[in-house]
């Protein structure tokens, strides 16, 4: 059944806010989503009733906190069809990618080996590899993006057939909105025995994710884009990979025993969770996953598709507005990047903000692909389960105001 965003909106207290005396229209969920009351309440309740450190104390509160923390992990693992031992709490997707680059890839590469990426990656999936390149002398290769804004799959196969040491790609581009054929790419990579990481930040919040079906070696995502708190995310890794890896950070919780002469790492998943973790973050993400599951991931996906198609149709009617990425809405996730005439995206954002409409502008932490579009910056509106057609109408109206101010 299609979801009713009007009733969904009641779950998000911030959506009642007024910005410049106008009802907030939040079209920046791809940067970070707003939070439902149940997530806020769960965190509040955790602090008020159950807070203590985890895995350390035998007292009641520590036991309760540990149970809540580990129980959240179980539900998050189930949400992506992973085993709990394969579900590692990290700070965010960025940390997950850095962890894999350092603890998995670094020890398996030699100078001249290739790390394969795509031209549409976020900085989080470029910079860790540049750093590996500086440390180990690996080369980065990028699968090109066609004029339509989709990956050149022929080139993907050509590059993969040369057996790069590792392949890392985004499931949905945060600039172009392109949905990449993740399963097909992973299958192709495995044909050539190339391990794969999926940056699933833009897809896990919006559609069902099944790591077993995808057969990816690693997958990362951040809680804050999926109704959860910031500062927590997940690294999924196949168990045999995680077992073969050296720990990323050292400290408490990631050890079995410590001697003056050395240490023994802990079992999975704690082997990669050094120090007191973001306990309330994990508990909050658990609540977010419950909330999303209750609404229904298929329903959310369908709603986002409806809104994206509606927005595309109406944006295309605005003269001098250029849309980036696939023109076919079936190939797009819930975001649309665009420019309006010669108005810089910052100026557009300022004018829309005055109308209560929050959009993102700039290079979206994906500078190379924005450079490739040959524009200094792009404006982006992005959608979620609480976005309504009225939100889009308000944004369109504000864009017409911008045209008027800039005399376009």
């Amino acid at each position: 059944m299609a979801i009713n965003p009007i009733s969904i909106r009641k779950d998000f207290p911030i959506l009642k806010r007024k910005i410049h005396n106008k009802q907030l229209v939040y079209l920046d969920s791809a940067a970070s989503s707003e939070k439902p009351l149940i997530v806020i309440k769960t965190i509040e309740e955790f602090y008020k009733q159950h807070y203590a450190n985890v895995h350390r104390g035998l007292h009641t509160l520590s036991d309760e906190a540990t149970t809540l923390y580990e129980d959240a992990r179980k539900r998050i693992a189930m949400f992506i069809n992973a085993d709990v031992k394969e579900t590692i709490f990290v700070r965010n997707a960025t940390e997950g990618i850095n962890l894999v680059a350092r603890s998995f890839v670094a020890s398996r590469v030699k100078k001249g080996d290739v790390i394969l990426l795509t031209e549409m990656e976020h900085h989080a999936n470029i910079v860790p590899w540049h750093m590996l390149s500086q440390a180990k002398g690996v080369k980065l290769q990028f699968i090109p993006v066609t004029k339509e804004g989709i990956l050149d799959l022929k080139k993907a196969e050509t590059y993969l057939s040369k057996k790069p040491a590792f392949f890392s790609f985004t499931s949905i581009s945060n600039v172009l909105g392109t949905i990449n054929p993740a399963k097909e790419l992973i299958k192709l990579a495995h044909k050539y025995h190339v391990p794969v990481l999926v940056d699933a930040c833009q897809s896990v919040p919006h559609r069902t994710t099944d790591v077993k079906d995808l057969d990816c070696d690693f997958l990362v995502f951040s809680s804050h884009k999926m109704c959860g708190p910031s500062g927590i995310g997940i690294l999924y890794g196949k168990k045999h990979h995680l077992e073969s890896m050296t720990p990323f950070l050292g400290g408490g919780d990631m050890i079995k025993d410590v001697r003056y002469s050395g240490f023994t790492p802990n079992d999975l998943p704690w082997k990669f969770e050094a120090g007191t973790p973001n306990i309330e973050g994990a508990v909050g993400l658990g609540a977010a996953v419950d909330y999303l599951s209750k609404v229904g991931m298929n329903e959310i996906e369908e709603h986002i598709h409806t809104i994206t198609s509606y927005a595309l149709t109406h944006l295309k009617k605005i003269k001098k507005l250029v849309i980036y990425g696939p023109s076919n809405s079936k190939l797009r996730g819930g975001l649309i990047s665009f420019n309006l005439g010669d108005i810089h995206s910052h100026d557009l954002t300022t004018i829309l903000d005055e109308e209560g409409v929050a959009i993102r502008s700039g290079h979206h932490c994906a500078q190379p692909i924005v450079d490739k579009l040959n524009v200094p910056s792009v404006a982006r509106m992005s959608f979620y389960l609480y976005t309504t057609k009225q939100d889009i109408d308000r944004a369109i109206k504000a864009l017409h105001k911008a045209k008027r101010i800039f005399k376009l």
Partner: protein
Amino acid sequence: MNTEQLYQEVILDHYRRPKNFGTVEKANATFKDSNPSCGDIIEMTFLIDKQNIIQDIKFTGKGCAISTASASMLTQHLKGKPLNTLTSLTKQDLLDMLGVELSGIRMKCALLSLKVAKMAAYNYLGEQPHDDFE
């Protein structure tokens, strides 16, 4: 100040037809900087004579209406003036020049050109920067 007042004719004019856009040949002072949170980039080139007069000044880069208009007006203001006109210029002077009120994050757009110009001047003079650019 609402956006209709912010994006007044003069700002739009400097944005669309910036003054002193380009690179000074035989420049003897130059500086480039960007605003990483938004991606604005400005590079300024100067020709400064022995009496520390700014004989020529130009800028290149990419940015929004505010940052481009700011660079355009600033270079227009500084051309032919002694370097200390630049080094003594304050944030408020620049905002007065632009004739706009800006808040928080958009203030950085306006101030990037001033930072770049001043850094070029300090480097040329061999002085340590003593401004707070944030």
